């Protein structure tokens, strides 16, 4: 059986360059970050600072130019296509700003899809899918298509889908970016609750300051570099003093 490591994700000297029309743009510039199992960590930074790029590298959705991503101390570059697919299916759940539900599928079909890929029988997948949709408060909407749901409801479906195969990591890229203030807050609270209940590690890229309250740690990123990392303990202990620095 799998050994558990203290750090579920580590990145070392991560560099990602994009070449566009002969110009080289360094979106990530030497990011080294250790993420502990079970923590809720927010990657904060302005638009264009490299959050999505980091999200893609950690999630195995793109390859870094140089540097390493370790998942459970395994170098992701060592994984073949089958192992990467397994990782994306079983170990990581993804949540996107644009929800990325399959438009022609119902809420339930969207949630069961990762389970189908994992080889789980249709009956079991449907049973679990309904349970997950109930957990996120959509028990009455299982047969609705994404176009028949509000933004907040679509994001709830995406959250239910991300939990389909009991992943160890949830990666969220601006999960509240397309939602109004109140709906965004509900989504943040839902993520926090699921983090507490299941012990899943949540890594959330955002520039939504509401995220700070629920985060165990906040990584501040600017121009592809880590600016600083603040722990919740610091924030709690130094209420008032830290406030100016956080924003």
């Amino acid at each position, binding site marked *: 059986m799998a050994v558990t490591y203290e750090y579920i994700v580590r990145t070392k000297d991560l560099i990602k360059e994009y070449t566009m029309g002969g110009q080289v743009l360094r979106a990530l510039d030497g990011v080294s970050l250790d993420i502990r199992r079970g923590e809720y960590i927010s990657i904060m930074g302005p638009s264009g600072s490299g959050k999505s790029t980091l999200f893609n590298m950690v999630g195995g959705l*793109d390859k870094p130019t140089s540097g390493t991503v370790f998942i459970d101390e395994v170098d992701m570059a060592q994984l073949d296509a089958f*192992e990467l697919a397994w990782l994306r299916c079983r170990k990581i759940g993804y949540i996107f700003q644009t929800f990325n539900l*399959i438009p022609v599928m119902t809420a339930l079909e969207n949630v069961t899809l990762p389970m189908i890929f994992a080889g789980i029988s249709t009956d079991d997948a449907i049973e679990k899918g309904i349970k997950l949709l109930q957990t996120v408060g959509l028990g009455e909407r299982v047969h609705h298509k994404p176009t028949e749901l509000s933004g907040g409801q679509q994001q709830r479906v995406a959250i239910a889908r991300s939990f389909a195969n009991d992943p160890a990591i949830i990666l969220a890229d601006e999960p509240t970016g397309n939602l109004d203030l109140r709906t965004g807050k509900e989504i943040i609270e839902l993520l926090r609750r699921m983090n507490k209940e299941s012990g899943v590690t949540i890594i959330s890229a955002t520039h939504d300051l509401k995220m700070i309250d629920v985060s165990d740690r906040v990584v501040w990123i600017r121009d592809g570099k880590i600016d600083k990392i603040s722990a919740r303990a610091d924030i709690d202990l130094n209420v008032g003093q830290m406030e100016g620095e956080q924003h």
Partner: protein
Amino acid sequence: MASKQEAGIRRQIELPLSQAVKMARDSIRVRFWRSMITAAGIFLGIAFLESVLMTSAILKSIGDGYDDVVRTRQNWLVVMSLLVSTVGVVNSMLMSVNERYREIGTMKCLGALDRLVVKVFLIEAGFTGFLASVVGAIVGTGAMALVLWVRFGGKFWGALSGASVEVLVNIGIGIVIGTVLALMAAFYPAWRAAKMPPAAALRSEF
């Protein structure tokens, strides 16, 4: 650094073909009208090809007047109609794959193997291509038969019975060409989209 085994990382399983068939069928069903438009592109190409082939077969069978000039013109039309159907089929399939890049990226995030994505698209294309070609071949042949019948009257039936084997072979050729073109036209874009990193597929706007 830990080994893959220690970390419990395993290999993704391959889904049985029946699962891919089911996904392809569902996909056609839920976007029925979009699939019909794709099918229409294939249908028109094959119907045109068949009408030209039918004319050749009947003229040849009637005999008189089927001289070098007519033969050259008919062959030229066959080449043209082949080109037209190729463009029609390839365009239809390219469009139907291109507009689904994001979906492909999403499926890969959820654990789909590249080959499953390609398989689903090929089954969809094969199925759509086959049905559209069957209908296109029958309608193209039938419509041209009507035109030739009006033109030649009673002589048409004699010519048809003389050319019946060729007509059937032509229908078969049309069905094979339509299906194979649809499969080939779907393969390249589907394979390209499937092997692209999910981040890139998700970013594409269609």
